[in-house]
């Protein structure tokens, strides 16, 4: 088991270095650079000297190989340098945005779990009834509806309904305040995006819960439990659901990791100043250092969650660690 854990942990490092090299190269293959965007995106003019000064200021006039070694050496020391756009330390830029993305991810996960597990279980237990049909339709709609579209529509619905009812359109505040400063205002800002994302997230988990439950319910040990005369509630809660949740937990974990950096469009729709929006901004601005750091954060989260899942499976299933 220890050899398996060590080998999996050691695999993380070449994965990270490979990802670092890839993102470094891809960013520089895109024509243009941050100085052109900074000086010329407004349609205004600028001097050649200004462009040269900008290049020198942020260090992109140096050979790529030096920039790459700087990046890798900085990464090894957990120092990603400064954002080429704002001049602020990249860590600070990410740290400012991370709590918002984390909060939305946690709330969406809670919403997803609260919706998915009961409905997925009921759907499996009532297979091929009208209840199953309704739940499946609900989950398929969630899978088919893009979260950003749902976000836009939900805001418009709120605006239209409040205008029709109260005469004045209302929408949640758009200037974020932390939870500990003003919990009600914070929740009113975060609730709509969390619901929007949570719906899709719930749909995925609901499908997984249903199929896992259906599989488990056909297992011999469930039949044995029934034959023993155990009450239905105990069979479902203690024997069926507990075992069926293993793949569901995996899906929830992976989805959660995705939400921490993947809410690219949804954060834009709700004007949330999170990691996803920062990612879009950094790519648009061709801010190499910030994009590299953000990609590395996302890759690290993905690699670590995969590692945890692998270890979790190994712990559950001896065949994996002994193979």
């Amino acid at each position, binding site marked *: 088991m220890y050899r398996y854990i060590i080998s999996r942990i050691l695999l993380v490092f070449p994965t990270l270095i490979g990802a670092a090299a890839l993102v470094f190269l891809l960013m520089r293959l895109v024509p243009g650079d941050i100085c052109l*965007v900074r000086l010329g995106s407004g349609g205004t003019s600028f001097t050649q000297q200004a462009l040269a000064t900008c290049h020198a200021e942020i260090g992109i006039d140096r050979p790529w190989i030096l920039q790459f070694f700087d990046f890798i050496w900085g990464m090894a020391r957990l120092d990603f340098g400064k954002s080429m756009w704002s001049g602020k330390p990249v860590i600070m830029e990410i740290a400012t945005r991370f709590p918002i993305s984390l909060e939305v991810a946690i709330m969406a996960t809670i919403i997803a779990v609260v919706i998915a597990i009961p409905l997925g279980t009921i759907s499996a237990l009532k297979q091929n009834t009208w209840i199953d049909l309704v739940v499946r339709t609900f989950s398929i709609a969630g899978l088919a509806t893009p979260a950003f579209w749902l976000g836009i529509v939900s805001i418009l619905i709120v605006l239209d309904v409040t205008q029709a009812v109260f005469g004045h359109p209302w929408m949640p505040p758009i200037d974020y305040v932390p939870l500990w400063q003003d919990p009600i205002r914070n929740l009113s800002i975060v609730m709509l995006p969390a619901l929007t994302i949570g719906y899709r997230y719930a749909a995925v988990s609901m499908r997984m819960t249903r199929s896992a439950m259906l599989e488990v319910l056909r297992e011999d040990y469930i039949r044995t439990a029934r034959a023993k005369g155990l009450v239905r509630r105990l069979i479902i809660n203690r024997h069926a659901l507990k075992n069926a949740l293993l793949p569901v937990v995996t899906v929830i974990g992976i989805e959660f990791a995705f939400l921490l950096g993947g809410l690219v469009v949804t954060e834009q729709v709700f004007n949330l100043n999170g990691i996803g929006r920062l990612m879009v901004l950094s790519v648009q601005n061709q801010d190499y250092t910030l994009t590299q750091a953000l990609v590395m954060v996302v890759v690290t989260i993905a690699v670590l969650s995969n590692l945890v899942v692998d270890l979790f499976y190994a712990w559950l299933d001896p065949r994996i660690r002994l193979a």
Partner: protein
Amino acid sequence: MRTGFRLGAVVVSVLLAIAVPASASEMPKRGGTLTYMIPADAPPSFDGHQEGTFAMLHATAPFYSTLIRVNPENPSSPTDFVCDLCTEVPQPAGEGDTYIFKLRPGVKFHDGTPLTAADVAASWNKIISPPEGVLSPRSNWFMMVDKVEAPDPSTVVFRLKFATSAFLPALADPFAFIYKKETLDRDPQWYKKNILGSGPFKFVAYETGQSITGVRNPDYYHPGLPYLDGFTGIFADKQATRLDAIRSDRAAAEFRGLPPSARDELTGALGDRIVAQESDWNCGSMVIINHKRKPFDDVRVRRALTLGIDRWQGAPALSKIANIRTVGGIVFPGSPLAATKEELQQIAGFWPDIEKSRAEARRLLKEAGAEGLSFELLNRNVDQPYKYVGTWLVDQWSKVGLNVTQRVVPTGPLLEAQRSGNFAVNSGANCHGVVNPLLDIQFFLPASVGIANYGQYEDEKEIALYNRMLRETDPSKQRALMREFEKYVVDTEAHQLWVAWWYRIIPHRSYLKGWKISPSHFINQDLATVWLDK
């Protein structure tokens, strides 16, 4: 006849009069906090001298003073400049090459230290001749300035290399914030991350990428101003977010410009709770032609491109869906240097008879052996108005037998393609702040002297013509030279094509008063005269 061509400007004035009823006669109310949207993400820095984006200006202009500025009570005028820190806009002394400014007494920075002529001179010297490693993207606007001096604490003297009417409008640059000399001497980059001005509002807080907040400066030197207790600017680059915020009254306005559909959506939903101010915009759509790409090295082909475009019919039609409206030459339509409609109609591409124009285009293409020419139109991946204009141009050129495909790319790759000459024809834009035609048309100068001409050509005759015009101080002679220059660059040589002027639409909550639209989203944003009628 010029009056006829000024119809656009008159229409704008009438619209303004209707849109802002009796604003002048209303008594401003003090107090309240204005929340407005800044239609962008966070600016790279807070240093006005180093940045060129409106995102920086809309966030920080309320904190700063400038030496002179566009009159905030009459910002739609392209020639009305008033003092901010000075006491009187001076007449040039000497041979028209010396400007002596007297400063208001008692002006203080927000930290309580007095603002003196030394601060003004140091700020301007940083803009005109930046220290090593410090950006100054607009330094070329001040090529006429020889030196800036502060002979005593209340006097600033600008000595020019030559007299030119381009100087005063350039001096009203809204980015030219006045900083503390002591701070600049210590660290010329300090203002990138810090805010310390002498303007109507004091800096309170900046939430990175989210919002910026200011409160009234009780020591502001313009008596009675500002009216607001404070303001909050919220960054939001998505138009839908900004519209929703205005509609739900989370914000009162945004000050860049929205398309006609957004105005209609807001007025449809809110009725008289929304007021729309509109103006011609000192930005325009143009076509950049790469002279190094065959067959565009042939002036006949370039002229055919401009002759194929029906601006007189197209601009009004585009104005229904895009931020485009007025047909004009290379000079902003409201400027005394702008062409009249009759003058304009003498220029290829602006002829009143489009059939005659297109027939000539086909003849030129045939003569140049470029009939049925296929090429790619490079465009910016921005809806308003780039993609609308690009799509329209493709259609216009198809009417003279050209097969044009449009390729849209993000800003970075577009700018790279422009600078490296990796394009054939580009649908671009030319955008400015203060209306200053002599500097605004630098876009048309060859790359050896122009700073952003991507046409890849040289033309000594054009440069000589420009230099004569720049140094001509007699208005009528200067105007005649401008006509000659305009005809030369967009007709005779058709170096680049001018398509149409943009149109600025600002729908805002009707309780927001005292803000007047200008021809640029860069100017009149210090919010000192803004008040809330609620």
